[in-house]
């Protein structure tokens, strides 16, 4: 007797046993190393693969790059980061103009675009600048603090007149000597290398100060002190300062540089100073008293 409604039954009961493959896969799944690999390794591999796939297309890479550059630009050009003004302290007007001219910056500019170190070196390469500090202050001001070189001597070189500081570094060119009558005049090749000595010598001239025209470097070795009236004191290479002291004392005491007496004092050998008489001074030769050089 069959039931009227045929209920389709499976011929055999389902086998509860896992197949060999299912069993092995299940065991594999329960292996901790495999589990870890699936949970960590596979996502990482997929992620890396996706990133590679996305960035292997040059067009997409360029779009991404452009977008990033644009993003950077938009941040950099926010008004908070813009520099509008340049303030220069401690420089003469002339130098300030020079600095403004020499700095290749068009203000307003973003502070991200300013390479302060390069600009500093740029400004320091100017002759008249000894030291410079740059900083971007709040409110968009580029503060430049300059320490100028102080001219100490005028150097009459083959190329013309130049102002040098106490270290012999060039400060600026000079049109005429009379523009800076207060400064010492030096001349001769390589005179800029011995400016410090020249300044010492100039200070040591004492009573002859008002008669001194300047110092002349001879053969890049030693100094001559030039006085008005064509007088000249020739100094040795070494020990120039004591030699000058003695020459000045001698000249002052003996009034050697009165007109028509001595043309030049030769102290190149300090042990044996030589006087060259001026023309027409020979007549008074007998009146010359002996000089005790050992004194």
């Amino acid at each position, binding site marked *: 007797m069959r039931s009227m409604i045929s209920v389709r039954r499976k011929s055999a009961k389902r086998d509860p046993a896992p197949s060999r493959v299912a*069993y*092995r896969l299940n065991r594999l799944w329960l*292996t901790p190393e495999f589990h870890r690999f699936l949970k960590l390794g596979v996502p990482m591999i997929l992620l890396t693969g996706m990133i590679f796939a996305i960035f292997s297309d040059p067009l997409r890479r360029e779009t991404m790059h452009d977008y990033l550059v644009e993003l950077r630009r938009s941040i950099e050009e926010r008004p908070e980061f813009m520099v509008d003004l340049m303030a220069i302290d401690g420089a003469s007007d002339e130098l300030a103009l020079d600095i403004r001219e020499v700095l290749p910056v068009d203000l307003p500019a973003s502070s991200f675009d300013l390479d302060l170190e390069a600009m500093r070196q740029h400004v320091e390469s100017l002759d008249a600048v000894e030291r410079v500090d740059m900083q971007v202050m709040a409110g968009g001001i580029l503060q430049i603090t300059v320490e100028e070189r102080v001219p100490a001597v005028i150097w009459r070189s083959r190329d013309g007149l130049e102002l040098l500081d106490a270290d012999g570094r060039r400060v600026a060119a000079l049109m005429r000597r009379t523009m800076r009558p207060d400064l010492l005049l030096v001349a001769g090749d390589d005179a800029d290398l011995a400016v410090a000595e020249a300044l010492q010598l100039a200070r040591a001239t004492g009573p002859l100060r008002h008669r001194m025209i300047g110092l002349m470097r001879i053969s890049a070795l030693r100094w001559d002190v030039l006085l008005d009236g064509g007088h000249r004191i020739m100094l040795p290479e070494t020990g120039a300062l004591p030699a000058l002291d003695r020459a000045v004392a001698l000249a002052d005491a003996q009034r050697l540089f009165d007109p028509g007496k001595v043309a030049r004092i030769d102290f190149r050998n300090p042990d044996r100073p030589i006087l060259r008489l001026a023309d027409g001074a020979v007549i008074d030769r007998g009146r010359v008293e002996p000089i005790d050089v050992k004194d």
Partner: protein
Amino acid sequence: MSDLYQSQRAMRNKRQAAMQRGVIAVLDVGSSKIACFVLRFDGADLHMEEEGIGSMAGQSSFRVIGAATTRSRGVSFGEITAMHETERAIRTAVQAAQKMANVRVDHVIASFSGARPRSYGLAGQVDLHDGTVGDTCVARVLASCDVPDYGPEREILHAQPVNFAVDHRSGLRDPRGHAGNALSADMHMLSVDRTPVENLLYCIKRCDLNLAGIASSAYVSGVSSLVEDEQELGAACVDLGGGSTGISIFMKKHMIYADAVRIGGDHVTSDISQGLHIPMGIAERIKTFYGGVHATGMDDREMIDLSSDTGDWEHDRRTVSRSELIGVMRPRMEEIFEEVRAILDAAGFDHLPSQRIVLTGGGSQIPGLDGLATKMLGQQVRLGRPLRVQGLPQSVTGPSFASAVGTCLFAAHPQDEWWDFDIPVDSYPARSLKRAVRWFKDNW
């Protein structure tokens, strides 16, 4: 013999490796169900070293983290008859237990009930050269036991030293350090048929598992069901399984005898099926719901519907009284107990100081069975349930899981077996050295 010695040693090493990894599975391949437990070993066992607690103490070192059971297929009389069916059943159980434990197991310790176990008592004696028992003496005395001819196609499943005696002081558990002239040992050896063991090994190997130990389920049921004083004073454990009934006798905490009756609960079911003309499935269901061995007047009035699906209305609407069912079941149970009685008599169970009999296994749940057993086996019968172990689900704490739980204890703390001792070194090289010395003496 040394072949088996080596393979048993290899299994012990695998067990050590599994303990190191901390996870091991136990598998009870029975005729009616296959149970798989996953054990986690963590931390040292605190009570292991204490004196007098013995082999039961290993239970505190592990925890059952996965348990699964499935209907057995292809196993009859505790032996595998259909390899692939059994393999699938093992796979089912192992996978379910792994899923519950959420861990992969590689090592498994198996127990099975069939393969016609047979016990042998072995005795050996050696002279002590230096007057005290050293470490190697134990191995020597075990090696000196004269192994009986247990037959071809047989394997040794267990070989446990049960007693040591130095001179005439017997009953020593650990003879090392004792002073005396002669050391003798008694060893209990259990041999089983080779083919069922090989079939089981094949099935387990097909499941990608390493076998880390193998045990007779009669033995492990006794380990889990007998309480400590029963093991000490002497008791028999009767494991009423599906296809076979295992008997193990314990004395001084050692198994001294084991055997099996090849009748079990499945035969009761088949009797019901034949007697009442119903399918096996329904017979099994009726047996578990209404079964019993002692009929009363009340049982005559309790009618059981025998629903079946033949299409014959008269046949499908039959009823039987419960006493009729009991009338079918009781002779079979009596037959089982008669066999058990015969085995106990053969083993000399009457001479033991205590004659406690513990019934366990799924068949022991038949109501009134203890009364029947009392009549047939002796007065001291009780129903045994396996020891409680940590983490065991409630559903698998019944007496049917006695051998599975016992296998857990066996895995955690196995008794010393013969292969746990090193082979004595004096077998070949020493003799040849002696021969060389003698040759020198003879010639000069």
